[in-house]
């Protein structure tokens, strides 16, 4: 397999610069000799390309083969109960293509046919029911764009700057347009008991990954989804059916969902007691920390996406999101938080969905300490790492929504750092 370089290391960075033929100190571009790409007839301008039968289902062109999910091997004992990361440093807009959207499995990505799929609703209901996949497609359905963020996103950064790349520090997130049936519709179909304050949801895979969700949320906006970005869910995201729990930690978005039980108390399963609980400095731990608080990150420039063009016009861009509502504003600082400028939102923020921001700027070629700071419609302002540490200490693991700093050098290279 061909080795790809993406500018993570200094060597790769310099090689990339050489390949693109760009002088790092360049100001306004000028050409001494005519460009053969223009003056000479190129093969693609003369010969023929692929026919329409070439790729019945297309993948990105070969030149984009470094825009892929990546794993951090030392994080987990093996790759089956593990996680990988979305290449957010290389994407733009807000919708994450399924093929590079992060995966988290507890017992591996299983293959479950639609024909073999069953969904049970039981517990405190009038009519315990079994639905097939075909049954689900007969209920009125809805479309919504939501982000799904693992509670452990940025979890490796609690103790200090660790991983050098937005993909690794912030890539446990994706944002898709889901098609599905509101969970409320299915609960009503079964005739849920109003004394049932919780639903317990579990998956069909070996991990089962059960979670308890308060009935109020279940009736509000939870979706039983079977399509993402217009097509069937991918195997790794729970094909054929997964739960979508808007704004809440990804672990609750149970994949291959097979059972929904209405009950009067939470199960206190492994995933909601021993994991996905946040230990504070005094040793007590918070549980039921479901909402993902407002957060943002500059995706470019960033360690994997250095500035290759020298000083002059520069697009600083990134993503912002909040599990409690819509993003209303993102500020960007170039000096590590001394002064801030308000960035332009590509579109007004939408509830529990990624928002893209841009700061179109003129880079003077000097070192920058790039930060972004999100605000949501509750008025909440994304905190600094030290603000978070003051409340939580260093051992929370989960729900790290601190302001991230990239040190961008005059060469254009960027590094994950912490600042005072």
């Amino acid at each position: 397999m061909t080795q790809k370089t993406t500018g993570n290391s200094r060597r790769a960075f310099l090689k990339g610069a050489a390949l693109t033929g760009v002088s790092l100190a360049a100001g306004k571009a000028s050409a001494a000799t005519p460009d053969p790409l223009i003056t000479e007839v190129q093969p693609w301008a003369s010969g023929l390309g692929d026919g329409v039968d070439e790729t019945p289902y297309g993948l990105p062109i070969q030149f984009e083969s470094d825009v892929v999910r990546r794993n951090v091997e030392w994080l987990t004992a093996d790759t089956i109960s593990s996680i990988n990361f979305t290449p957010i440093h290389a994407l733009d807009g807000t919708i994450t293509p399924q093929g590079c959207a992060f995966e988290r499995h507890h017992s591996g990505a299983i293959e479950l046919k639609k024909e073999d799929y069953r969904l049970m609703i039981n517990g405190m209901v009038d009519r315990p029911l079994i639905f097939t996949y075909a049954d689900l497609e007969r209920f009125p359905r809805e479309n919504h764009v939501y982000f799904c963020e693992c509670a452990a996103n940025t979890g490796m950064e609690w103790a200090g700057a660790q991983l050098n790349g937005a993909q690794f520090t912030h890539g446990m997130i994706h944002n898709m347009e889901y098609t599905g049936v509101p969970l409320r519709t299915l609960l009503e179909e079964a005739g849920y008991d109003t004394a049932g304050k919780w639903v317990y949801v579990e998956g069909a895979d070996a991990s089962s990954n059960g979670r308890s969700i308060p009935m109020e949320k279940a009736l509000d906006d939870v979706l039983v989804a079977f399509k993402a970005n217009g097509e069937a869910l991918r195997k790794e995201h729970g094909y054929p059916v997964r739960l979508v729990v808007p704004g809440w930690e990804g672990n609750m978005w149970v994949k291959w969902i097979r059972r929904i039980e209405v009950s009067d108390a939470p199960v206190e399963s492994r995933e909601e007691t021993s994991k996905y609980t946040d230990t504070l400095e005094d040793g007590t731990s918070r549980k039921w920390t479901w909402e993902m608080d407002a957060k943002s990150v500059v995706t470019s420039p960033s360690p994997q996406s250095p500035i290759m063009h020298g000083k002059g016009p520069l697009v600083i861009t990134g993503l912002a999101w909040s599990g409690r509502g819509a993003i209303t504003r993102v500020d960007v600082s170039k000096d590590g938080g001394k002064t801030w400028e308000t960035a332009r939102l590509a579109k007004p923020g939408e509830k529990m969905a990624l928002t893209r921001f841009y700061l179109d700027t003129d880079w003077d070629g000097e070192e920058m300490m790039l930060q972004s700071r999100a605000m949501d419609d509750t008025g909440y302002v994304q905190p600094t790492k030290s603000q978070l540490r003051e409340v939580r200490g260093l051992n929370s693991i989960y729900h790290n929504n601190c302001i991230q700093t990239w040190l961008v050098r005059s060469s254009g290279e960027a590094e994950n750092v912490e600042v005072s």
Partner: protein
Amino acid sequence: MSKFLKVATALALISSPIAAETFGLGRAALPEEIAAWDKDVRPDGTGLPVGSGDVLTGEEVFADQCAVCHGDFAEGVGNWPKLAGGAGTLADDDPLKTVGSYWPYLSTTWDYVNRSMPFGNAQTLEPDEVYAIVAYILYSNDLVDDEFVLSNETFEDVVLPNHDGFIVDDRIETEHSKWIGEPCMENCKEDVKVTMRAMVLDVTPDEGGDDATSAEPEAVEETEVVEEAKGEEIAAEEVVAIDPELVAAGEKVFKKCKACHQVGEGAKNKTGPILNGIVGKAAGSVEGFKYSKALVAKADEGLVWTDETLAEFLAKPKSYIKGTKMSFAGLRKEKDLAAITAYLASLGN
């Protein structure tokens, strides 16, 4: 509205079920079906089946089913979870979170072992085995003595040390109340210094093409396919044909082995050695893997892995090689043994 209707409306508001539009979709779940899937266990023991298991039985079952990842004493192997120890460390710099030190409810342990373990072979344990394993985990954490018997009746007597160690999410009061309002835009700090750098730590994975999709042009791929097809024909003439169905069945059986053994391109030694080309290979010869003394001794005697020796080993690993590190209990079914050897034989080097 008649008096009768008023009463009916009032009742509907108070009691279940919610009267809403229904679609008449789905079918009634049968009691057997609900029993097969509704297995979760609550902190008060709701959902526990009748059964029991003692610490000593648990030690044996644990050694067979769990120790390969969690260690003989539940101390954890490599990066796999530690289940014992860590008492009193939760406020330390690096807390050790185990069943004994962290988990608030015993029901969680029982439920998780019952439904999701062993890794790669979940939902195969009998209730008594689960009781025994959980009893052993309690023993490993010094929470019970070696004569303890865990059953659906003794279950509620056990209260885990960190039972009261949790609070319900209080971020709204402790965080949101502080971090709200118009943020600072200018002169927010006097001075800014870099205090820590990721490059110094150097734990970022190399971004080589490991995960990259193949960038080979289509035409080249086609040529390769043609060549492979030719190769297969030749192979088929030379050796006894491999039964693809048996190989496929073996691949499924291999799921039990996957937690420890890797195969295929890019395979690495994990808890167990790589198994590419294992059939026909001398025992103990995978480079870079540290074998048990027992296996090395067998290898010195000249053991070679053939269909027969592998089947014999995999039927009862601990009888075939006393002292092997492989704590897999063994395959009981003849057809599974035939399938797994066929699958292993189908793997190239």
